[in-house]
């Protein structure tokens, strides 16, 4: 009973922390993009625009909720929730610091990848249920893209798993006890795998240059063209939550998770370092987003199957060979 209450409380805290983080990550991204584009960015609401995300959230809550007359109501209304739940669930396995997390599963990374792949169901429901041709095309693209990028994403994420010799996320983090042992600094394999991870992340998060399902200039807004108000906010929330989760995963798999100066004694300092690293990965992805043009659907599939997939497989095999030869890092 006590453990159930504990799990509930921790889950509640993590969920709210994620929601808060999402609102402020949008501000971070807007400020960052503004600097890239020689603009100032949000500035009017609160000092340096610090209250802008709150204003945005309030605005979205107060907007009229429009349901297209010919939409498949049940599917249309359910889609944002089906999309949001897996995006939130993936935070369950993330250990934010040693012993600080909801559930440190022994198959953590498997759970993470499996659940994050579920978001496609919500995407397709939204695209189908809206009864809109733009949304339908976008849903078709979504299925194409996410299926083609989940496999390389999985294979790349398995590289640190092999190196650490465990599927448990806290074990993978523990296998990188200091800067020299971060997996990104593992000779050759580490850097290549990180690069491939970033590419696969971009595609999994539907960010430019792989944002063909949103494609404002062709498909207007893709699968969410008919959504407004709170339902739109839920989709947006899910998208950013997924982005933050994959940034955390990237920081955990390659950048030594909570390792940093003085982090051994204090889990809270470790959690802070982890957050910083996740934001670094997030900004890396954002940087790419704001400097590339979108590529075409056939080119996206070609990159996945002809380039990323073989690279990921070769990396995985090379890692396997190295690990059998030298033994896993985490022992």
């Amino acid at each position, binding site marked *: 009973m006590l453990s159930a209450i504990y799990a509930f409380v921790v889950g509640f805290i993590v969920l709210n922390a994620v929601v808060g983080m999402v609102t402020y990550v949008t501000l971070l991204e807007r400020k960052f*993009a503004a600097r*890239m*584009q*020689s*603009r100032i960015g949000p500035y009017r609401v609160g000092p340096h625009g610090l209250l802008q995300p709150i204003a945005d959230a309030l605005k979205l809550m107060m907007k009229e909720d429009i349901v297209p007359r010919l939409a498949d109501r049940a599917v249309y209304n359910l889609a944002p929730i089906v999309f949001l739940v897996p995006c939130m669930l993936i935070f369950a396995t993330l250990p934010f610091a040693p012993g600080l997390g909801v559930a440190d599963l022994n198959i953590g990374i498997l759970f993470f990848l499996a659940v994050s792949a579920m978001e496609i169901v919500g995407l397709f429901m939204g695209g189908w249920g809206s009864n809109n*041709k*733009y949304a339908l*095309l976008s849903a*078709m*693209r979504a299925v194409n893209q996410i299926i083609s990028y989940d496999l390389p994403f999985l294979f790349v994420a398995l590289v640190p798993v092999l190196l650490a010799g465990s599927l448990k996320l806290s074990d993978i983090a523990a296998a990188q006890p200091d800067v020299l042992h971060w997996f990104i600094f593992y000779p050759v394999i580490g850097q290549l795998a990180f690069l491939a991870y970033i590419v696969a992340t971009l595609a999994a998060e539907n960010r*430019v*240059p792989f*944002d*063909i399902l*949103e*494609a*404002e*200039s*062709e*498909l*207007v807004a893709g699968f969410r063209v008919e959504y407004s108000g709170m339902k739109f906010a839920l989709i947006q929330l899910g998208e950013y939550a997924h982005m933050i989760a994959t940034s955390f995963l990237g920081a955990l798999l390659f950048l030594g998770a909570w390792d940093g100066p003085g982090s051994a004694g204090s889990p809270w300092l470790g959690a802070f370092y982890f957050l910083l690293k996740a934001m670094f990965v997030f900004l890396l992805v954002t940087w790419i*987003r*704001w*400097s*590339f*043009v*979108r*590529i*075409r*659907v*056939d*080119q996206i599939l070609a990159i996945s199957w002809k380039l990323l997939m073989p690279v990921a497989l070769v990396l995985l095999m090379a890692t396997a060979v190295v690990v059998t030869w030298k033994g896993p890092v985490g022992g």
Partner: protein
Amino acid sequence: MDIEGRQVLEMGYAGAERLTMNMGPQHPSSHGVFRAILTLEGETVVAVDAVIGYLHRCHEKLSETLTYTQYPSIASKTDYVAAMTSELAYVRAAEMVGKIDVPKRAQYLRVIAAELQRVASHCLWLGTWCLDMGGALGGGATVFLYCIREREDVLDLFESLTGARLLYGFHQVGGTRYDIPAGWAQKCRATVDKIDGRISEFEAMLESNAFFMARTQGVGTVSRELAQEVGISGPLIRGSGVNYDIRRAEPYSSYEDFDFKVPVEMAGDCLARYRVRMVEFRESIKIVRQALDGLPEGPISSRPGVKSVGQVRIPKGEAYARVEGARGEVGCYLIADGSAKPYRMKWRGASFSNLAVLPHIIPGHKVADVVAIMGSVDPVFGEVDR
């Protein structure tokens, strides 16, 4: 959709289910109000039908009710992105009918205005084109904002020259309405120098970007034959290997005094059109510098200032004047009957003729290419619908 009745090119039927999709008239990348009815097989466009006319404002009829003094300011509203050139076409037609001389200084001022306008217009084209390909929430927006920053500088120049930023009323029959204010030439030089440097930045940024190249190379190829058959002009026809520029073929407003290059690319795809325009940027800047260097002293108009709007009268006759606008040949056919207003007037919009190439090149491409090709054609719908 009645495809046969509208003479639209169509690909063969591959057996997949077809979907008719309406792109526009309200669409993020319709560059105004343009409706393209796409017939899709999956992601592939098999036919496209273009619907125009949403921005029709009766320009040609309107010109019959306005005097030669009044209409130039309205003429700028046909192609509102490059207002200087459409004004110029109108006043040139009036001058040709009336055999009115234009002082050398006014001709040079017209050249400066037209070439600065070309720079401003190409800035907007590059920005919106990248926006079409990269999205408002991606790298396209970054290029767009950089380009808008440059365009603003040119618009500031126009503002201090004419008092307006978009629709100028700078040209008038017999010369120009305004002379350059004190210190304007130095400011203009500084601005074009700055833009000249930034163009290299854009080129480095875009051409070293593999995704940009993947989206433009081999996309929307217009062959030399097709280009001549359809009657496209401007950067489009020069991108298809035809060396044709009215400034060179039929010099007007003292263009023969200036030394400039007419860029020609052979490939005919979006990248070729991009390269043509990037060279045009630099050539326009070169012409502006030459015109500022050689700006002669003298009056800016061969006619005295008008006291009433009906004072300028053009004798009976007709003429077709054409100028090289930012998008191609801007023509104005004018019939005068001796009064203060034209008897008839007809525009030849560059964008209108250029749009005619779309149904020939879009079928067979993916949906995403439609916006890239549209953007590379650079239509302005004020000029298409008039």
